[in-house]
């Protein structure tokens, strides 16, 4: 089922949660709504579910206007961050709930319910837990049961609100992958909310970036990461070095170097900011080729990568570079050394207010 969100706005008292949001989700897609807390992503999810009513705008399910439909009629499956499992019911009863509350005419027989529930528990690989109570399960198990419960009513779309937010890091990673595989298997249109950019980039078909109630960019993971549309997106998806830059006729200064900035062919003497990923800041031997010269302040070893925290010799501002463990071991860099860095790739945004706030 496709979902079309048209000009949806929502405020809570003075707080603007959603500001004229437009988005179309294709059938069978797995879309991530990504952004910091308060950016509106959860509100949008709840609007789709029917848990909130938009102040303006419409929602269409498969070109049918669903904006005024009651929560129970929307046929959406919803998974909450804190599971919301019914504590006084067994796992089996939890999953069966949606089937048991159907109106008499639509309610399946007891045998059919049992079959369906066991099928779902098998799907989430927890068939052996049917008689337990939620408080006897681990976090990861609870979330999988919550998913099974949501799927029991054969929803047209699956909505997940920070589904792994309450779990330990390792469990989170495992479940992330598991969710992706599950989605590939059942092909259900799914939307999930997260503030973890790694999760969004790893799992989803498309990423929608939210900030302050507006969509900043929509695109496949590679695209938003490699071609961020706004400074916010750039900064949100991974670390960024931020350096002042001057843009003239399609070229921008970065430190002592110049790179092409074809987005701004007509700029004259414009000030802007250049964003450089740490791993795009390469260490070079020749100071003449370098954009920056910096002093090594800290060396941070993180497993397979090494991060060098630096201070630019020209203005003392902080810089960061990243390299592989092997690469680092080949050098003999120590704290206090001076090194030279070239920018392999960078993105420049001019400081004009209009330009930086454009939505994708």
């Amino acid at each position, binding site marked *: 089922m496709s979902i079309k969100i048209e000009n949806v706005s929502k405020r809570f008292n003075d707080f603007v949660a959603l500001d004229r949001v437009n988005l179309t989700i294709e059938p069978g897609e797995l879309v991530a709504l990504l952004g910091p807390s308060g950016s509106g992503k959860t509100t949008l999810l709840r609007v789709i579910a029917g*848990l909130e009513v938009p102040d303006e705008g419409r929602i269409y399910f498969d070109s049918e206007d669903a904006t005024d439909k009651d929560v129970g009629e929307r046929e959406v499956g919803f998974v909450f961050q804190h599971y919301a499992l019914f504590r006084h019911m067994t796992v089996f009863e939890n999953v069966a709930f949606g089937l048991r509350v159907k109106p008499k005419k639509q309610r399946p027989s007891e045998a059919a319910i049992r079959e369906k529930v066991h099928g779902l528990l098998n799907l989430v690989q927890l068939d052996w837990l049917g008689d337990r109570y939620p408080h006897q399960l681990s976090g990861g198990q609870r979330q999988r049961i919550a998913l099974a419960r949501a799927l029991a009513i054969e929803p047209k779309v699956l909505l997940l609100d920070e589904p792994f937010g309450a779990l330990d890091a390792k469990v989170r990673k495992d479940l992330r992958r598991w969710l992706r595989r599950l989605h590939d298997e059942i092909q259900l249109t799914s939307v999930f909310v997260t503030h973890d950019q790694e999760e969004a980039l790893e799992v989803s078909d498309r990423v929608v970036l939210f900030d302050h109630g507006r969509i900043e960019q929509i695109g496949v993971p590679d695209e938003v990461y490699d071609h961020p549309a706004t400074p916010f997106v750039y900064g949100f998806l991974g670390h960024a070095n931020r350096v002042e830059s001057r843009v003239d006729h399609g070229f921008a200064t970065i430190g002592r170097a110049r790179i092409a900035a074809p987005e701004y062919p007509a700029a004259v003497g414009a000030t802007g900011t250049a964003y450089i990923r740490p791993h795009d800041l390469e260490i070079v031997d020749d100071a003449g080729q370098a954009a920056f010269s910096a002093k090594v302040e800290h060396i941070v070893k993180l497993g397979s990568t090494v991060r060098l925290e630096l201070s630019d010799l020209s203005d003392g501002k902080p810089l960061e570079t990243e390299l592989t463990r092997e690469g680092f071991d080949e050098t003999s860099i120590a704290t206090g050394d001076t090194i030279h860095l070239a920018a392999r790739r960078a993105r420049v945004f001019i400081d004009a207010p209009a330009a930086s706030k454009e939505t994708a």
Partner: protein
Amino acid sequence: MAAVLDKPLPEAAPRRVARPIGRPPSRSRWMPIALTTVALAYVTIALFVPLAAVFVEAFRKGIAHYFASISEPDALSAIRLTFTAAAIAVPANLVFGVSAAWAIAKFDFKGKAILITLIDLPFSVSPVVSGLVYVLMFGLQGWFGPWLQAHDIKIIFAVPGIVLATIFVTFPFVARELIPLMQAQGRDEEEAAVALGASGWQTFWRVTLPNVKWGILYGVILCNARAMGEFGAVSVVSGHIRGTTNTLPLHVEILYNEYNFAAAFACASLLAFLALVTLVIKTVVERRFLKAAR
């Protein structure tokens, strides 16, 4: 009454995500209004109306009659006795309550649960039975009856009996308020004080007391309200001798049984006013101070 004053033990910080309040889409928006209306109607009939009746009936014969009723000698001595009983019962129960709370909250020992249950006892015993047990102890045919008579000490049908009965029915209040409060506050601060060299009393006065002062106030107000308002237990032990062994509630009963309604309600209105003051203080203390302490 026990569970109502039984506050739960300390909880981890709520892990619910704070969400701004939105309006749920619901065709049945009339439902909340209907529920609220019924609930308010119930509360009005069950609570407001009787309360209002007290004051309306009190002034039925006019203001002059009202003031005459409450300043008449028997009424005044009833007021005096009520205050006396409260003035003895409340401090005594305060000392007990603090002791019990300290023993229960700051130490681990077997039999704690039984102790707490025993403290709860007066709440589930009928007031009449509470009075009766004192008559059985100190009345003429009671255990100590002959001994008391020989020494010409009157407890039952005299002021001491009234005080004792009042103490019995009100004695859990302070304890039941302080015990959960002190349990929730833990022992860390007191242990720190002792480690720094403070004596028991110093620890209590300087560390514990400031932390529990609002709980004490809360318990004392409730204790006082019940002490001044107790009827059943006091009725049994009092002998109903006008001018001597009548508390204000008993005086109200006597006036009422004489069909002296306006006067009865006039005296009752004093007690009702006390109840309202109690409620106000209770609400303020609860909202501002006790929520923070937990």
